[in-house]
């Protein structure tokens, strides 16, 4: 049945070359853990992407209950975690996954560094990778405030003070982040929410696309 459906679409749209381009590519021996077990270090990039997908999915589901408002944010988080079926699991996936993404992206960076994969002709992909790292850290920072509990509040105070220590423009950055020159409150929460669920994910998807197109065009770097 599925085959027939596929053939029907393929006959009209010729989709086979499209997914072949995406899915069919050789995995060289030196990056295949089945040949050399130590090649598992080449999995870190894929694992980072896998966890990122989980983060996007679990985040989409969390926004079904979450409210980015100082009156209701904590209450809605408490409700979705304790009153909604599997709330603890879904929030747990997003909470632990957030830390795991940073760990995996760091391991991936180490692998790229120690195999020298950043060297010519792959310098641009390294640059995009560093930008991706920045976006992930931005997502971590903005997401940390959203539960609107004491830890979130004071962690963000500290983060914003660190941003404010930038010479000359520090105070402007602080106001830009917090939405107010002195208060860390209603406007901060809505800003961080917007940045966390719209702006940074958009940047993330664009950079990921560039990252993947480049690796597919250039292929994986050779063995050491």
């Amino acid at each position, binding site marked *: 049945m599925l085959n027939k459906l596929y053939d029907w679409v393929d006959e009209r749209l010729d989709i086979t070359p499209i997914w072949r381009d995406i899915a069919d590519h050789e995995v060289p021996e030196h990056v295949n853990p089945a040949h050399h077990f130590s090649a598992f270090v080449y999995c870190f990039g894929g694992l980072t992407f896998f966890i990122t997908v989980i983060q996007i999915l679990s985040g989409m589901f969390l926004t079904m209950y979450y409210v980015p408002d100082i009156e*209701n944010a904590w209450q809605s988080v*408490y409700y979705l975690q304790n009153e909604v079926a599997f*709330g603890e699991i879904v929030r747990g996936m997003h909470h632990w996954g957030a830390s795991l993404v940073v760990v995996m992206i760091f391991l991936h960076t180490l692998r790229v560094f120690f195999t020298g994969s950043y060297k010519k002709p792959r310098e641009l992909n390294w640059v995009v990778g560093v930008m991706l790292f920045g976006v992930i850290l931005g997502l971590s920072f903005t997401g940390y405030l959203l539960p609107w509990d004491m830890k979130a509040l004071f962690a963000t105070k500290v983060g914003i003070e660190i941003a404010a220590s930038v010479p000359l423009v520090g105070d402007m950055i602080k106001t830009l982040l917090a939405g107010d020159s002195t208060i860390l409150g209603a406007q901060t929460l809505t800003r961080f929410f917007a940045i966390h669920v719209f702006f940074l994910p958009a940047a993330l998807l664009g950079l990921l696309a560039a990252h993947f197109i480049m690796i597919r065009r250039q292929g994986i770097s050779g063995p050491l």
Partner: protein
Amino acid sequence: MSNNRVSRRQFLGYTLTGVGGFMAAGMLMPMVRFAVDPVLQQKEGGDFVLTDQRVDEVTEEPVRVDFTFEQTDAWYVSEVTSSAWVYKEGDKLIALSPVCKHLGCTVNWAGDPEQPNRFFCPCHAGRYEKNGQNVPGTPPLGPLDEYDVQEQDGYVAIGVVKANTLVV
């Protein structure tokens, strides 16, 4: 042993699809259950809410009776005021829901001066008889819902809403 040999490629294909599907399901199941929770949550049955309408002042003419109760909307608890159309049929108290069965607007008794013995919905001119029976040829497709109603210390108390039992 059958003669249909499964090739190594097919075997790996089936195994990987199976394991991959199992893992994907394990990942998606909590999220989907989380999302559909409002459909599956059990609502506890409501208590009777006392109104300030005296039973001995209720006549055979429907009157609008407001009642206020505490509504829990997920994490938001608030006082909500609803109303019912209450009248007597002999000695029996009757309370009808004012929610139109067409598209949910609020109906009024004698809302249309030209037909003073019917409920009238201003949105699309839906009409109902006194017992809630929808008037054929007007938009509603069913009779008005009915509230459980009882007398408490001489006052009207309104319970949960149920399907109309007066219309045969």
